[in-house]
């Protein structure tokens, strides 16, 4: 058995397809993305080496890039605020072994499996100035002449996008929290109860400290996915109005695949990668200190 498990031929046969695909379609492009960002290239004319000019332009000349970075961070913070506390509250409510816990959990999770595109389109309809659900609802109180183009309002657009995304993903974080909470040993909770701790005190003083590693996972997941947000922005607003919802991914998409500035787009993509790594690292180390 030992001998057979060392069979080089079998190992190669088993592992090489994955390694080759990975190197070709993830690793090489990652290296190339850094490389490309030193060039000016539209795929038609020859590549031109321009050193750090792409990065320089990004940081000094491209106002939209800076705005897209700020918007992405705005989106990230709004998503955390809209999703994490609500998901946590729902998880607390749904782990008390009461009736219909599972039913509620299953309903709240439904949107997670839907496509971001379909959800965004649905919210495009909900926010619609004339026929949308939101304005129709407000009209019940404000009179039938009320109309507001939510997605055309630069001050409201980003919030609207984040609400749509929160509608979809609160259930995801809720399930993660529920898993964490149900794995906390019953003895601890029982001891707390015997000591006379109220339900909410138990949640705050006993469950929450034990949940820190799980909260960390949730925060890392929401951070990396928020930094990469594309679908919902692309469908709902296309980055508008006047770039109020332009995020890094949509900016990269426009620069690369509309303006055909591949080197420049690559530079944005690479910065996005760095930002993901840095943010995950910050969250992880912030939680490590506390533990």
């Amino acid at each position, binding site marked *: 058995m030992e001998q057979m498990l060392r069979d080089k031929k079998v190992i190669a046969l088993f*592992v090489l*397809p994955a*390694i080759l695909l990975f190197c070709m379609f993830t690793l090489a492009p990652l290296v190339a993305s850094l490389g490309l960002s030193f060039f000016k290239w539209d795929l038609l004319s020859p590549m031109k080496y321009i050193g750090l000019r792409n990065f320089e332009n990004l940081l000094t000349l491209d106002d939209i890039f800076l705005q897209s970075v700020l918007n992405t961070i705005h989106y990230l913070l709004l998503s955390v605020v809209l999703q994490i506390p609500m998901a946590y509250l729902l998880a607390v409510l749904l782990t008390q072994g009461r009736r219909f816990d599972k039913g*509620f959990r299953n309903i*709240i999770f439904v949107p997670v499996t839907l496509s971001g595109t379909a959800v965004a*389109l649905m919210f495009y309809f909900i926010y619609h100035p004339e*026929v949308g659900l939101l304005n129709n609802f407000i009209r019940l109180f404000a009179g039938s002449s009320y109309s507001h183009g939510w997605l055309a309002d630069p001050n409201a657009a980003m919030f609207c996008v984040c609400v749509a995304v929160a509608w979809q993903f609160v259930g995801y974080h809720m399930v993660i929290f529920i898993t964490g909470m149900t*794995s906390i040993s019953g003895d601890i909770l029982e001891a707390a109860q015997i000591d006379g701790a109220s339900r909410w005190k138990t949640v705050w003083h006993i469950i929450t400290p034990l949940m820190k590693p799980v909260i960390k996972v949730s925060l890392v997941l929401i951070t990396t996915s928020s930094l*990469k947000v594309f679908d919902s922005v692309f469908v709902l607003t296309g980055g508008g109005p006047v770039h109020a919802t332009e995020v890094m991914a949509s900016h990269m998409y426009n620069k690369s695949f509309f303006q055909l500035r591949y080197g420049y787009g690559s530079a944005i993509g690479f910065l996005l*990668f760095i930002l993901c790594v840095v943010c995950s690292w910050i969250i992880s180390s912030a939680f490590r200190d506390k533990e």
Partner: protein
Amino acid sequence: MQRQRTKKHVRKSDFVRYGFLGFYGVMIVYPLLFTLMSSFKTNQEIFSTPWALPQSLSLHFYIRLFTEFNMQSYLLNSLFYATVVCLVGLVVTTTAAYAIGRMRWKLSKVALGLLMTGLMVPMHAIIVPLYILTTRIGVTNRMALMLIFITNTIPVSTFMIIGFLKGIPREIEESAVIDGCSIPRAFVSIVCPMLKPTLATVTIFNFLSVWNDLLLSLIFLNEETQKTLQLGIVRFKNAFYTDYNILLSGIIVGVLPSILVYLFMSEKIISGISAGAIKG
């Protein structure tokens, strides 16, 4: 007296609890129902009686989606890409996971570390070079798209399968090998069947990630006949922004397959998320 008071207190907190959960549940379900109802209405009804039930449940707009707007082609394309990616991805990752998690070789840790770096790399960071690469090496766009999807499944799937392999006792394979079975043979006929629950979870997630993708298909698929469901329904937003029914029934066709999958496999999907989160 004491007892009565607690009972009353419990009832009150129950009221708050179920009231809140019920409200939240309605917030989740009602937008979907509103969209569904509106999809049966005429433009006239959508404007004048937004809250009323549709006057008739005619499937007119749904039929138009299929006869005029190629919906069946979008659906079949999405199904085709997702199926191919799941099948090939499963073979590639299960074998790799077995070689890394079970077999004995010096570089297995290195290989694992290499594949796990993939968890950190966002698609956006590599999409430009990928686009250039695949147009240069002469594979067709559909092929490129599927190869990229397959590669995307590798890190997470391999990670999950290795985790599960550790829980399978080696004795079972050992006895098979003693009986004269080769390693690949034992892998196919003994290990794989035991991995079935994990493979099912992995497949559902891979399927959903291909089915729900927008960015990659947007970049790689230009020809109408190759487009996916998501590209198909996105088109309705711009093309029919006064003809709401096409957009609305498009949305419903867009969400229906996922809801059906969820209805049958909710436990599997939810436990898969849990497993991923706790291990990750």
